[in-house]
C-alpha cells in the first residue's frame, strides 16, 4: 500500500472496508479499461476510420476536422462521469490511453502480422496531449461550460501540431511516374490495398481547399467550434448514462 498524503486525507474508510473498496476500484478499472478499449476503439474505427488507418488519408482538411470531433466523444462522457461523481480529472486521458493501446494492438496484429502492411503505413494519430489538456482544464476550472469552450478548442487545435512531428516527414515529395507525390501517397500506391482504390480517399476536397496553406488552421478552428458542441452533447450523454442508484445504497 502506498502512503501518499492524499490517500490518508481522502479516505473515509478504514480496515476491511478500505480493502474491499480498493478491490472494487481495481475491478472497475480493469472493466473500464477493456470496455473503453473495445467501445471507444470501435467508435473511432467506425467514424474516423480510414483517416486514422492510412498515411495517405491524413490530409490537411478532413483529418484535422474529423479526428478531434470524433475523438472528443467518449472523453466528454467519461469526464462527466468521473468528474461529476468522483472528482477524478482523468476521463479524457483514460479514454485516449485505452484507444491508443487498442489501436496499436490492431495495427500491429491485424494490419501488420495478419495483412502484411508495414506498421509505419498504418501509424495511428495521437490525441493524448489534447486529452491531458482537456483533463486539467476541467480540473482547474471545475466547469463544464469552460471546458466545453476552452478545453474543446484546445483539444482540437493541439491535434495537428501534436501529430505533425510524426507525420510531417511522410509529406516529403518524391518524383514518381513523372509527377510529384508525397511519401504517404507512395505508400498508398505501392502497398496494394485491394479494397481501397485511390479514388475512395476523401482528402483535400471541399471549399477549405481554396485557402491553400491556411486549410489546416481553418479546418482546426472549424473542428474546435464543432468540438464545443460535441463535447456538450456527449457530456450530457455521459451524465444520462451514469447512474448512481447503486452507489447510493452503499
Amino acid at each position: 500500500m502506498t502512503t501518499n498524503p492524499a490517500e490518508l486525507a481522502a479516505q473515509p474508510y478504514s480496515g476491511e472496508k478500505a480493502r474491499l473498496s480498493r478491490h472494487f476500484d481495481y475491478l472497475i478499472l480493469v472493466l473500464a479499461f477493456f470496455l473503453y478499449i473495445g467501445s471507444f476503439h470501435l467508435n473511432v474505427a467506425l467514424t474516423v476510420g480510414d483517416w486514422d488507418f492510412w498515411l495517405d488519408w491524413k490530409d490537411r482538411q478532413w483529418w484535422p476536422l474529423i479526428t478531434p470531433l470524433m475523438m472528443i466523444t467518449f472523453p466528454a462522457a467519461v469526464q462527466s462521469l468521473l468528474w461529476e461523481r468522483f472528482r477524478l480529472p482523468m476521463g479524457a486521458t483514460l479514454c485516449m490511453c485505452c484507444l491508443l493501446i487498442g489501436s496499436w494492438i490492431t495495427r500491429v496484429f491485424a494490419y501488420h502480422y495478419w495483412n502484411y502492411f508495414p506498421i509505419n503505413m498504418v501509424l495511428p494519430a495521437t490525441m493524448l496531449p489534447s486529452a491531458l489538456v482537456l483533463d486539467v482544464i476541467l480540473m482547474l476550472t471545475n466547469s463544464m461550460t469552460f471546458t466545453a469552450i476552452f478545453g474543446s478548442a484546445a483539444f482540437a487545435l493541439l491535434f495537428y501540431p501534436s501529430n505533425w512531428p510524426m507525420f510531417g516527414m511522410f509529406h516529403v515529395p518524391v518524383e514518381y511516374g513523372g509527377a510529384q507525390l508525397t511519401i504517404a501517397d507512395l505508400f498508398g500506391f505501392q502497398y496494394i490495398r485491394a479494397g481501397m482504390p485511390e479514388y475512395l480517399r476523401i482528402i483535400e476536397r471541399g471549399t477549405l481547399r481554396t485557402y491553400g496553406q491556411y486549410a489546416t488552421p481553418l479546418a482546426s478552428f472549424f473542428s474546435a467550434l464543432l468540438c464545443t458542441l460535441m463535447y456538450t452533447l456527449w457530456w450530457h450523454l455521459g451524465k444520462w448514462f451514469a447512474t448512481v442508484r447503486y452507489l447510493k445504497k452503499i
Partner: protein
Amino acid sequence: MLKRLGFLGCVLTTLAAGISVAHAHGEKALEPFIRMRTIQWYDVSWSNPTVEVNDAVTVTGRFHVAEDWPIGVPKPEAAYLNISVPGPVMIRTERYLNGQPWTNSVALRPGADYDFKVVLKARVPGRYHIHPFFNLKDAGPVMGPGRWIEIGGDAAAFSNPVKTLGGEVIDMESYGLATGVMWHGLWLLVGLAWLLWWISRPLFFPRYKMLEAGREAELVTPLDRRIAKVILVAVPVVVLGANAMAQNAYPNTIPLQAALDHIDPLEPVVNTGAVQVKILRAEYRVPGRSMAMTAQIFNGTGHPIRIGEFATAGLRFINAVAVVPSQDETDHLTAAAGLHLDNDAPIQPGERRTVMISATDAIWETEKLDGLIRDADSRLGGLLFFYDDAGQRYITSSSVAVIPRFD
C-alpha cells in the same frame, strides 16, 4: 451517405473477420451484366509465375471499355486498376496505362481501348491467386483473368528503397517508424503517469462518499493543482516546440496529391470498322449451358476471315477449327473447343454473312454468368476475335439482349 454506411459495414465485418480475404476475391460476386459490359479484358499475361522475394512480376494486358455500358452502373469517371492480393504480399512499383505512368485514378471512356502494364515486386513468400482488376467508382471490382504466383525466399530480405526529391534514399519498410513509436511512447508515458497519479488513491466509493459529504476540497489537493498547471503549460509548449522542429527539419513538404490522372485512349483497336458484327439474337439454353448467337458479319478487310474466339467476363470460348489454342489456354476459364459455327468456311472479303455462333461450356454456370437471364439487365456483351489467313486479328465488341430457353 449510403457509401459511408456501406463502408461502415465493411469496417465492422473487417474488425470481425480480420480484413483478410483468402481466395474469394469476388470474381463471381458482381452481376453478370457488369462483368460482361464494362471492362472487357483480353491478352492478359504474366511474366513469370515463380519468383523470389524482391523479384519483379509484370502483368500486361489490354481491355476494351464496352460501348453498351450498363445504365445501372455509373460512368467510369474514376477507375483504378488494382491487383487482388491478400494484403501487400507484393508491392506495385510501376503501373502504366497506354504507356503513360499512372499512379492515381483515371477516367475511362466507353468504347475506347487501353493497354496496361503493372510491375509488381514480390514481398511475402507464399502461393497466391492474383488477378488484375478494376475498381470502378460506385460499381465494384471487375476482375480480370487470374494466375497462381509462387513467391519463394525470405520475407526479411525484402527492401524497398525510394529516393526523395531532396536526394535522400529512404527505406519505405521502416521510414518514420522510430519517430512514430518515440512520440507515441512519450505521450503514452505521460498519460499513464497522470492516470497512475490518480489511480494510486482510493477511488470510487471513498471519493463518492467524500463528495457527497461535501469534503470536495480534500479530493483535489494543492499539489494536484500545481501539477495540473504544469501540464496545462508544458504540454502545449512541447507540442508546439516539436511541431516547429518538425517543420524546420522538413521544410519542403507538400499536401497529399489527389489529382485524377488524364490518359487518352489508344487508337481504336476494337470495333475499327474493318469487320462489322451485329448480333441479331441470342438465346441461352439453360440445360445445355450454351449461348447461341445469330450474328450478321460483314468482312470489310481484304482477306478471308474466320471467327476464332468469343470472350466475355474473363471466359474464353475458342473455335478449335480456326485457331490452335496455345499451351496457356489450359486455364479453367477457357473452353478450348467451346465455340462452334454453323458454317466454318472463311468469310470472304466484302461478304456479308449471317452465322450461328454457339458458345458452349459448363463455365457459364460455374462462373455464375447464367444468372444473366434472371437479372434486371439481361443484355450480353463480349468480344469476338477474327483471324485472317495471314494471322492478322480483328476484334469486335457487341451486345445483345438474351432470351432464356429452358428446354
